[in-house]
C-alpha cells in the first residue's frame, strides 16, 4: 500500500472536508485516517490516504490538490508518509 499524507491549512468554513473528500472519491483515493484541529477560525488537517488505485503521477496528484485548494481557499499538499516517520521516529 502506498501511504501518502495530505495536509491542509487555511481559513475554516463549511464544506472544506466535503470538497476534499469528493476529490479523493473521484480519483480512487481511499482515506485511511483523518485528523484536524481548528483554532481562531483556521483549520489544520492531515489525511492519511492510500494512493495505490490512483492512476496519475505524484505531480498530477499535487496539481489536483492545488485546484481543490483554490476552490476551498486552503493550501493542500501531498507527501509520502515515510518522510514524517523518518524525521519524527527513531
Amino acid at each position, binding site marked *: 500500500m502506498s501511504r501518502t499524507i495530505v495536509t491542509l*491549512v487555511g481559513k475554516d468554513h463549511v464544506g472544506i472536508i466535503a470538497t476534499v473528500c469528493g476529490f479523493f472519491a473521484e480519483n480512487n483515493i481511499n482515506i485511511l485516517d483523518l485528523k484536524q484541529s481548528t483554532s481562531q477560525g483556521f483549520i489544520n488537517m492531515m489525511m492519511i490516504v492510500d494512493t495505490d488505485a490512483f492512476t496519475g503521477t505524484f505531480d498530477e496528484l499535487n496539481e489536483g490538490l492545488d485546484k481543490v485548494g483554490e476552490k476551498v481557499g486552503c493550501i493542500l499538499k501531498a507527501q509520502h508518509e515515510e518522510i514524517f516517520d523518518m*524525521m519524527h521516529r527513531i
Partner: protein
Amino acid sequence: MVELNEVFETVNMVSNYNLDVRTITMGISLLDCIDPNLDVLCGKIYNKITESAKDLVKVGDEIGSEYGVPVINKRISVTPIALIGGAACKRPEDFVKIAETLDKAAKKVGVNFIGGYSALVQKGMTTGDKLLIESIPQALAVTERVCSSISLGSTKIGINMNAVRLMGDIVIKTAEATKENDSLGCAKLVVFCNPPDDNPFMAGAFHGVTEADRIINVGVSGPGVMRAALSEVRGADFETMCETIKKTAFKVTRVGQLFAKEASRRLGVPFGIVDLSLAPTPAVGDSIADIIHEMGMEYAGAPGTTAALAILNDQVKKGGVMASSYVGGLSGAFIPVTEDSSMAKAAEIGALSLEKLEAMTCVCSVGLDMIAIPGSTPATTIAGIIADEMAIGMVNQKTTAVRLIPVIGKDVGDFAEFGGLLGEAKIMPVNKYGCADFVNRGGRIPAPIHSFKN
C-alpha cells in the same frame, strides 16, 4: 502513527524556514577513461558522465516532489582531472579542452555544477598537476559549470608551499580572466588542507581515488530551521540550547538519509555519505549568521561568535551522526560571506573581519569562504592567507579551505555581485602589511609532530 503536530512541524520547516536538500551529488570515477590521446580521452569522459548521470536530475526532482522537500541542486563530482589528463595533456590548453568537455557533459545532463577539475599536490606537483593548475584561469573563464579545487596540504604530509605560492598567482589570474563578471571565476576555485574524498558540496567536490565507480552523496541544509528552533528556547541555558540543536540536526539529517537512500535505489548507484553541513543561502532567514545572532550575539563576529560556532558545529554533528548510517564530506557549519546575507551585512558594518573569520574556521568545517577582497591585493598576500588557513587545518587535523575573490577594479566598500546562490557583498579589507619574503622561500612545511602516529 505520526501525529498532527509532527506533520505540521515538517510542513512548516519547508514552507516557512527553507528546509531543503541542498544537493544530491553523483561521484563518478573517470579512472577508466584515461587515454594518451586527448580527443579519445575527452570522448570517453563525455560518454561516461552523460551515461552515468542521465537520470540524476529527473530522479532528484521526482524525490523532491514526492516527499515534499525540494532538492535544490543536482551535481556531479569526478576523479581529480590532473590524474585523468596527465597522460594526454602536454600544455595547459590541453587541460582546458577537458574542462570544456566536463562543462558540455554537465549541460547535457542538466546539473548546475561539476566538480573535480582538481589536483592533489600536498607534497609535490607532477607535470600534469602543474599544467592543470596553470590552466585554471582559462578553464574557469571559458566554462560555466566547472569547479576547481586544489589540495595544498594535509596533517600527515605537511604543506606544499611551492603550490601555495603558485595558487596566489592563479587566484589573481583567475580573477583577471573573469573581471567582466566581478571576477566570478574565483567563486569556482577553492584550495584545501585535508580535503575529504566524498564531499558533495561545491566548489570543492571531487571523487576520490579510493571511491567506487559511482556513488551518491547528499548534502543537507537547514540554517533557517535551526534558527527557528533556537528562537523557541531564547534565554534558556546552554544545555537546553545544545539539546535543541541536536534534535533539530537529527530531523534535518534524517531527510538527507531518506533522500540519499531513495536516490541510490532509483539510480542503481551505491549510497556513499550524508554531509551534515549547515549550508546557508542568500535567502532571508537561511543564514548561519542569523543562528549566531539567535544564540545571543548582536551580530556575527562579535566576541563570543567563535564559541557559538564551536557549539553549533559540535551539536550538529552529535545530532546528525545518529540520523545517518554513513556520515562524511565536510559535515559542519559553512560560514561563507557573500552566500549568507546576514554574514555579508555583519561584514559590511564592521562586526566581522577577515581575522575573525579565520578564528571561526578553527572550529567549523570549512574555511575562508566566498570573501570578496580588493582586486589590488598582492598574490603574495593571498598566498599568505592561504598558508595561514592551511596551517590551521594541518595542526588541528581538520579540513580547511580558502575561496577568496579578489574583485578586479574594485576596492574596499565597493559592491561585488555574483548572482544566484553565490550571493553578493561589499569588499572586505585585507591586512596591508606584506609577507612576500615568507611565501617566496619555496619548499615544504613539514608535517606536525602529532601526525606521526605509526
